[in-house]
Every structure is written in C-alpha cells, then in structure tokens.
C-alpha cells in the first residue's frame, strides 16, 4: 500500500497539468461554449501527441496511472471523451482514431460525445459492440457542460469478439467515478475559496458552523470516492468499481446542492465557473444510472442480490 504518488506518476501529472494550463481549464471551456461546449479536438490531439491517452497498456489489469490522468483532466473541466479512451478502450483493444462515446445497448436519447464520436462503444448484457455510425449523430441542445448527441437506431453489427461485457461495464464505472471526482473537487475548491472570502455579518460565511459542517461532509464524501476510484483503477475489480461509482454518485448529490447553496446568487452567473463543474455531475450521474443503478450493482457484485 502506498497512498503517495511515485516519481513517475508525479512527473506525468505535472506534464498533464502544464499542458492543461495552456490548453485546458475553465477558461478554455468558456471559449468552447461554457455550459454548452463544443468538443475539444485540439486538447485531444495534444494529449495524444504527448502519449497521455494510451497510458494504460491494452488489456492491462492495472490502470491507476490512466485514472490519475483522467482525474486531472476532469478537474480542469476538459471537454473530452478521454475517460472512455483512457480506461475503457484498453479492455477492447480496438483501433479508433478520434473520440468515442459509450452507451448501454438499450439506450436511446442523449449521450455525451455521441455527435462528435468516430465510434460508439455499446455495452449489452453479454456482448460489447463497436459501432461506427455511417452518418454523423445529431447534436442535442444540452446545457450541462458537455457536448451531447442524440443516439437512436444504431446500426447492427460490430460485435467485438472476446470483449467481456461485465469487465467493460466495470471500467466504464471506474471512468465515470473518476470523472465525477475531478469535477467534484473543482466545485469544492471553488466553494471553499468563495466562503473564505465572502463576508456577511462582519465575518467570512465559511466561519459559520452550518456552512463548515456542510462542506466537511462534502469533503469526506469526495475523498471516499477518490480513493475508491483509484483502488478500483488499480485492481480492476468489478465490486470496487461499483462501490466507487456509488460513492461518487452519492457524493455528487451533496456537492451539487451544497456548493450552489453556499454561493448564493453568485452560483447562478454564467461567467462564474461553479456551474460548469456542478452541472456536469448531473450528466455523469445519468450515464452512471444508464449502466444500471450503481448501488444495486454494488450489492449485486458483493452478494449476487
């Protein structure tokens, strides 16, 4: 057990952060359209050139470094489908150049990245397909901080031999949990800063115990999600993946309500960054649910119920 970054991990994350400071971050998301952003192809290109998108070996059991990169990307509000590439594609070992989207077989309706994707990973009960749509999937107007497409009537075929659906679903859960952790930490940090600066009744509002306790519980919830997600990325265990996503989903509800609440009206303004992270959580949670209720999956993985 070692809860600290080793020197290699440290160096990778430092390089990713440097890249993001120039080509990512909330300012970049604002440029791309804010809560209604376009896909950041430029960022993907730079990440790919630097080798950050295929950091996990194909079929590798341990994808911890990839998860650390993803958490960093998500914490900088990247408008990118790097999560699926970093954590899910290594299970499939397929060749896709551009962005990928990921949906459950039964899914129709909005899905992140679908309109920008070169291919969709479609997870069924016991098979996984890689669908390359013959025409562009239409965009959906969405204001949750992600580029979204409208999935319906996907073509048949594209079954990937020897791709275990359960394993792919587990890695999708790790990816979603990790992305949630990045976005939640962003929201929490900006809120801690806000309540430390903002004064009412001649004191920082962050000195009120009601606010302190509310944020302390948020922080405990996010920390729990982070370490479970990292452990799941390390072991690849389906049970830990389900627990990580359950913890992240539950935490995201607290984070969403409380970070907005403690911002007062400021949290509503579009030029302020808070909503860019919090709204994203709603989309992530809905994708989590579309893979099967996380808490039920956790109970199922542990006891078969």
């Amino acid at each position, binding site marked *: *057990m070692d809860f*600290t970054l080793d020197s290699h991990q440290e160096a990778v994350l430092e390089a990713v952060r440097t890249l993001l400071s120039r080509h990512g971050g909330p300012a970049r998301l604002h440029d791309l359209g804010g809560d209604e952003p376009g896909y950041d192809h430029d960022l993907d290109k730079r990440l790919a050139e630097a080798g950050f998108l295929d950091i996990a070996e194909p079929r590798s059991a341990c994808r911890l470094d990839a998860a650390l990169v993803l958490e960093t990307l998500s914490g900088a509000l990247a408008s990118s489908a790097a999560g699926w590439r970093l954590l899910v594609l290594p299970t499939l070992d397929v060749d896709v150049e551009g962005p990928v989207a990921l949906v459950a077989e039964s899914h129709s309706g909005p899905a992140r990245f679908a309109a920008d994707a070169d291919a969709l990973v479609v997870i069924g009960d016991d098979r996984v397909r890689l669908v390359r749509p013959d025409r562009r999937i239409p965009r959906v107007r969405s204001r949750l901080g992600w580029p979204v497409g409208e999935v319906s009537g996907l073509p048949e075929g594209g079954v990937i031999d020897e791709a275990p659906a359960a394993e792919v679903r587990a890695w999708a859960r790790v990816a979603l949990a990790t992305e949630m952790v990045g976005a939640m930490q962003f929201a929490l940090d900006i809120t801690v800063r806000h309540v430390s600066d903002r004064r009412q009744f001649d004191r920082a509002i962050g000195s009120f115990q009601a606010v302190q306790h509310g944020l*302390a519980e948020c922080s405990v919830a996010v920390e*729990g999600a982070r370490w*479970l997600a990292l452990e799941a990325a*390390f072991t690849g265990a389906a049970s830990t993946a389900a627990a990580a996503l359950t913890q992240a989903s539950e935490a995201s509800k607290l984070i969403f309500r409380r970070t907005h609440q403690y911002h007062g009206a400021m949290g509503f303004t579009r030029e302020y960054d808070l909503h860019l992270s919090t709204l994203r959580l709603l989309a992530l949670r809905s994708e989590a649910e579309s893979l099967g209720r996380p808490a039920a999956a956790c*109970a*199922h993985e542990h*006891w078969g*119920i």
Partner: protein
Amino acid sequence: MEFDWTEEDLSYRSELRDFLAEELPGRWEGATAVLGSADNAEYSRRFAGLLAEKGWLTPHWPTEWGGTGATPWMLAVLGEELWSRGEPRGPQYMNVNWIGPSIMAHGTPEQCQRYLPPIAAGDVIWCQGFSEPEAGTDLASLRTRAVLDGDDYVVNGSKIWTSYGDIADHCYLLVRTDAQAERHLGISVLLMAMDSPGLVVRPIPGMVGEHSFTELFLTDVRIPVANRLGPENEGWSVVREALSFERVGAPRWARAAHVLDETVRDAMEQGRSIDPVTVEAVGVAKTACEAARMLCYRVIDERARDLPPSPHANVARVAMVQAERLVADACAALQGNEIMRYGSDSDLQMRKSLAAGVAAGTYEVQLNLVSRRHLRLPKN
C-alpha cells in the same frame, strides 16, 4: 501509489483467520457487545491471554515490552480481523492501542515495569476517566481536582460515562492540578488503582449492552505522586498525543461491514426476497464501509511513514460514523419487524450506530476539525 498487500500481511491475515475460526467458531455470541459495554470483559481476559501467547496482543510494541516489531499495516490487519469478529479483546483494545504506548512514551522506568507487563500478558483491564458531568465535548473544562499533599495527590470530583469502571483494575484519569492556569495547562494524568479508598463506582444503566457505563465518585482519594504520568500540568498534551492515532485504531467500519454481510446472508438463506429499495440501501451501506476502509488505510499509510498525525484521521472517523449509520439503516430495512426482537442484528446495529457518533469524540467535533484543519475554513 499502489494498493497491494504484501505477502507478509496476507499470510498474517490468513493465519489470524485460521486462529479466529478455531477460537470463535460460527457466530461468536459475544460479537453482540457494544463498545463501552462490559458484557465480554471477563471473556476478554482469556482471549487476550491467548493472543498474548501468540505474540498478537501487543505485536507493535517494542520487543523490550513484549512486541514483535509488527508494522502499522499488520496492526491494522489485526484490528480489522478482531473488530469484524466483534472485538473479542473487549476493553483491552484500548490498553494495547493507546494506554500502553502512552505509558511507554511518558512513564518512568518504574511505571513501565509495573504497568506494561500485565497489559502485554492480557490480564488487566483499564478504564478511561475523562468525561465529567460538566465536561463532555469541552473536555478541557474538567474540574476533578487533585491537590498535592506530601507524596500523594488528594483527588475530589466525579467522572461519568466511564466504560468498564465496574470491572477495571486501573483508571487513566484526567485531573486538574492547577486551577489558576489557562485551562489546557492545568491538567495532569494520574494512573489510579480502582480499589483506592474513597472511590465509589456506580453503574449507569444504558441502552447499549447490559452493562453500559459507570459513574466514578472520588472523595479524598489519595493517589501517589509516583502514579502521575508525564510532567505535572502537561496532561493535555500527553493525552492528545496518546489519542491522536486512536481515531482509526478502532476500525468500526470492519465490524459494520461484517454485520451487514451476515444480515444479508441471513436474508438470502431464509429465502426472503429483497426488494429493490432495500438492495439500494444495502449497496449504499456497503459502499460507505468501503470508503471508510480506504480513508483509514490512508491514515495507516501515513503512520507507516512516520508522518505526524494529520486531519485525514478526522476524515476517516467521519466516514466510519456514516458507515455505521448506513449499515444500521440497511439492516433495519433487511430485517423488518425483527428489529423489535431484542438482540437481533438490526436492533444491535441501531444501538452501535448511536454510540458511534458520540463515544470517543462526537461526529460534530470531527466535522469541526475537518473544516478547520483539512479544508482550512476560517475561524470566526
């Protein structure tokens, strides 16, 4: 960063499990006891004696005092395995986790000679005399007064909620030795024999276990100066240091996870159908135990690196209390009307979860510490 157990830790765990499977076959009935209850205290003497023979009672102590040089990770494994079996060490987990180490750190050679071997042998019970009627969360306001008279302190006052007070041999007692000084600076630790004249112990019937806790009344109790632990008036820092790692010393999450596991398995064995809402509650509770586990591991990792205590311990404590509560909710949902049966899993877990947020530092105090030390939110 990596989350593997070493071969050594794995084989230690499996050795422990084999031992426990033999020693506590099936469901050990003592596992129903609640922290602070004296129900199993007598059993604990026998059990701790067995552990001592195997070198597993105080493995993390220096060899000089009966230790085997176990790492903090091995100690964590030991705690997990024992807590998930209902903590058969009973009150003695306190002795080995913090009372003994505190005596080692601050005791005179005579005190070490006198107190440590019985702890390491597993046949002594200590209680902790901190809380008073007027001093709960605000412990530093304690008033039990110790006045120097020759070679003794003469102690007057009272302690309350003292677990094991009726069966303990010794008490780790906090007293005020300087009434004038700033309140944190006038406190000392005294090691008191529980058969001292002038000490009256009265049980307080409680809702956690048959014997819950006690009240101690001290009237002119004479405690030799030689029994003072550490310098006079420096008791506050002595006890803070002693308890700094204790927040994760009791891996409550492991016991909660075990209770949840047994309750789910019972429901499955009895062929009861588990409705989707209950399945969700079970998944959320299991998750909370898992999150608490990782947050405790982070603290153990810091301890293994010899880092100073950090607010991550408070984060872990909050997560453990939440896990106990969510497991209580899940067990209640799983067992339905069984909660009316005294001693059912759901009944017991409800009681344990209530104690979790109060005993050994309240939930709110942990949140205060997380917000100030971890989030660095401003003070008023």
